[in-house]
């Protein structure tokens, strides 16, 4: 269906169901219970899940298929955000032009960076992209301050000259990003017994765009073009010997990947109209690489899972403070309680990086294929089937 094979269609369907019912799936604990701390079903985080999912899907088209490890993907994310915010400032608070412009600008940016960087491969390519990204970051941070507003970040103000639309609303507020009148920030709360579920317009817009991006990615993976990209990954020299020029293909993959990142950046700005230079920093680029590897590079769904995993830690674990931990273990005798809290303390709150790092190490050591491999192993255990059948379904590593 939709030009997808049966297995791909099932996968797409699963992702679609997960995305559309995320407000339920991510809020498994009643609001008043102590475990509500672990609920992730609030609009901002759900938006981040799908937006960084888009970024990781795009990154995977480059890294998973061609094997070119870009260490500068955050630059496209940042450029996309700036483009979108400028569109809000100058044209209209409607998100459509902003998203389109962010993709176009990121695409052009990718053509320039890709044209230069793709003359080298392997580690040299990674370093070149890293250099370009840091350059963009530093430019945005200081030299281009009139365009980017430096460290403070580009924001919407009350005196923006908006051509289609008003500078300020009737009651003196800043207008809100919207899709033909539907405000991105508005949401509806559904109360079912002790549970509360939030459905946000912004989230569903981002989720639908993510599904479209996911669909396009599947088509690219299964197309002859995707096959060429895999050929580049497995042996570029052989490709040259057969008389094929690989560079147009890598450049195309790089630009597509950059546009995905630009789209993600634009969407971030649509949900929250601010663009900061730190979105382009090398740590942000590194995060994309981590997401992809954590989820499973070269697989379709892996990067999305990885993105969700990292964003969950950043937003949920970082907010567990000593007070919360005390609440959990309050049933223990006093001395023991303090001891347990002292033991947990380094791993939660500001120590979330440490927990994430440990998990990353464990996954890379024991599940080199990322979370997807973990899922496959569990499925295999449950079905008690021989390994071979199953591995084919989701794994798309090129056979050599």
């Amino acid at each position, binding site marked *: *269906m939709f*030009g*997808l*094979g*049966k297995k791909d269609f099932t996968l797409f*369907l699963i992702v*679609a*169901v997960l995305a*559309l*019912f995320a407000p339920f799936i991510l809020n498994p604990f009643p609001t008043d219970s102590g475990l509500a701390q672990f*609920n992730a079903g*609030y*609009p*901002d*985080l759900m938006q*981040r899940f799908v937006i960084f999912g888009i970024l990781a899907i795009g990154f995977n088209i480059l890294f998973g298929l061609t094997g070119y490890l870009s260490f500068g993907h955050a630059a496209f994310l940042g450029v996309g955000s700036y483009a979108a915010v400028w569109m809000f400032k100058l044209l209209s608070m409607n998100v459509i032009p902003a998203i389109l412009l962010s993709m176009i600008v990121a695409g052009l940016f990718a053509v320039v960076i890709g044209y230069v960087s793709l003359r080298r491969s392997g580690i040299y390519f990674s370093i070149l992209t890293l250099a370009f990204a840091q350059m963009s970051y*530093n430019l945005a*941070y*200081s030299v281009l301050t009139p365009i980017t507003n*430096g*460290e*403070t*970040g580009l*924001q919407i*103000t*009350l*005196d923006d000259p908006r051509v289609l639309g008003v500078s*300020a609303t009737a*009651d*003196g*507020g*800043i207008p*809100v990003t919207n899709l033909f009148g*539907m405000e991105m*920030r*508005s949401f*509806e*709360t*559904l109360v079912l017994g002790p549970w509360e579920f*939030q*459905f946000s*317009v912004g989230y*569903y817009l981002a989720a639908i765009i993510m599904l479209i991006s996911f669909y396009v990615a599947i088509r690219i993976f*299964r197309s002859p073009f995707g096959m060429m990209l895999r050929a580049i990954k497995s042996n570029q020299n052989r490709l040259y010997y057969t008389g094929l020029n690989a560079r147009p293909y890598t450049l195309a993959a790089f630009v597509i990947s950059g546009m995905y990142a630009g789209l993600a950046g634009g969407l971030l700005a649509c949900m*929250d109209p*601010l663009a*900061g230079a*730190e*979105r382009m920093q090398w740590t942000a680029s590194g995060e994309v690489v981590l997401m992809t590897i954590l989820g499973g590079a070269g697989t379709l769904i892996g990067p999305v899972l990885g993105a969700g995993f990292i964003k969950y830690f*950043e*937003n949920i674990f*970082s*907010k567990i*403070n000593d*007070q919360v931990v005390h609440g959990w273990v309050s049933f223990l005798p006093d001395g023991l309680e303090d001891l347990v809290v002292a033991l947990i303390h380094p791993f939660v*709150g*500001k120590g*979330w*990086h440490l927990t994430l790092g440990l998990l990353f190490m464990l996954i890379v050591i024991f599940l080199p294929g990322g979370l997807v491999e973990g899922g496959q192993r569990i499925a295999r255990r449950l079905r008690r089937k021989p390994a071979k059948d199953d591995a084919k379904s989701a794994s798309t590593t090129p056979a050599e």
Partner: protein
Amino acid sequence: MSKTTLTRRGVLRTGAVAGAGVALPTIFTASSARAFTNAPTGGSVTLGFNVPQTGPYADEGADELRAYELAVEHLNGGGDGGMLNTFSSKALDGTGIMGKKVEYVTGDTQTKSDAARASAKSMIEKDGAIMITGGSSSGVAIAVQGLCQEAGVIFMAGLTHSNDTTGKDKKANGFRHFFNAYMSGAALAPVLAKMYGDDRKAYHLTADYTWGWTQEESIKAATEALGWETVNAVKTPLAQTDFSSYIAPVLNSGADVLVLNHYGGNMVNSLTNAVQFGLREKQVNGKNFEIVVPLYSRLMARGAGENVKGIFGSTNWHWSLQDAGSKAFVQSFGTKYGFPPSQAAHTCYVQTLLYADAVQRAGSFDPCAVGEALAGFEFDGLGNGPTLYRAEDHQCFKDVLVVKGKENPTSEFDLLEVVEVTPRAQVEYAPDHPMFAGGSLGACNPGA
């Protein structure tokens, strides 16, 4: 590839998904009937403390968090009550805010606007925070202030010193107790002129972001008005850790004063570099070479160690002040944590109390009512003498301290001595002063 085999299950499944997709938009049509964002319903109210727990300002962030915890304890009637006993407004009685127990959530801003906004958003959307406070960088404070304006909650700024926070980026839902760069300049310049004379040539090194820019602008204007000449002003990246390459040119510039518009780790490093280059022993134009640090904090003084001796700067508050409010605060902070609070801790503690008091006086958690109660509010007993929350820009006006690195510190906390308490009248300015012009508060936003 497109092999269409229709099965009963397949059709049902597709139908269900499509149906759900079509039905989805209808749930957005009705809008909720709440009067304002996160109106507290149960017996408790949640405040959001958003401070840097990692990154260059982590020290300040940790101290801010301690102050917030202390403030919550006092609001709920625990401890010795701290400044609640000396505060001129007696609306708070130690039973929480309007009878509701105060609870709090914490978050890490990472000193990045993006992360800070994500953290603040999760406090508002997930934890139901009615007020957000914190921040140790002006860039972050401005970004979070903008978010709170959009979301419809009150933002009580923590440590932010840029003119822009209550200048061109001011917001109706944002309030700042801390002083600003203009006030630093206005308080510091007369003391500098008295100590170093009015015929000086200054060289500026400035942290390249909103705070640095406004700090440089302010101190330049204040010193030039007294007859000083500005030789050069160089911007340095915020992430810089070695300033040798910036200090070397100072030696040959003909300048006889170096102004370091740096804060936190930046200032510690640049001052250390400057001292290593022997700037303080130099004679230029027949005068002793001097170094000035416009914004000082005890945590920075501790980081720079010996090098701060005799160096002038300004500060919002210092724990050695002898008024009743400061003494009460130092007493309860010291009892709980074993060391005196920093100025960042002080301003955060005071902001929490001011918010709670405003809610109590307004009789409502509605951000617009709270904003009205805070605007134009005059109070005393919180460590800075009589203070006014100006209605025009939501900036507090109070005395400013000019301090000097102590020559003979008696303990590791006793690093600064107060040279002069500059009276409030001397640091006041019109709301439309050119350094603050260009923005507008807009209307208060109570949210959904």
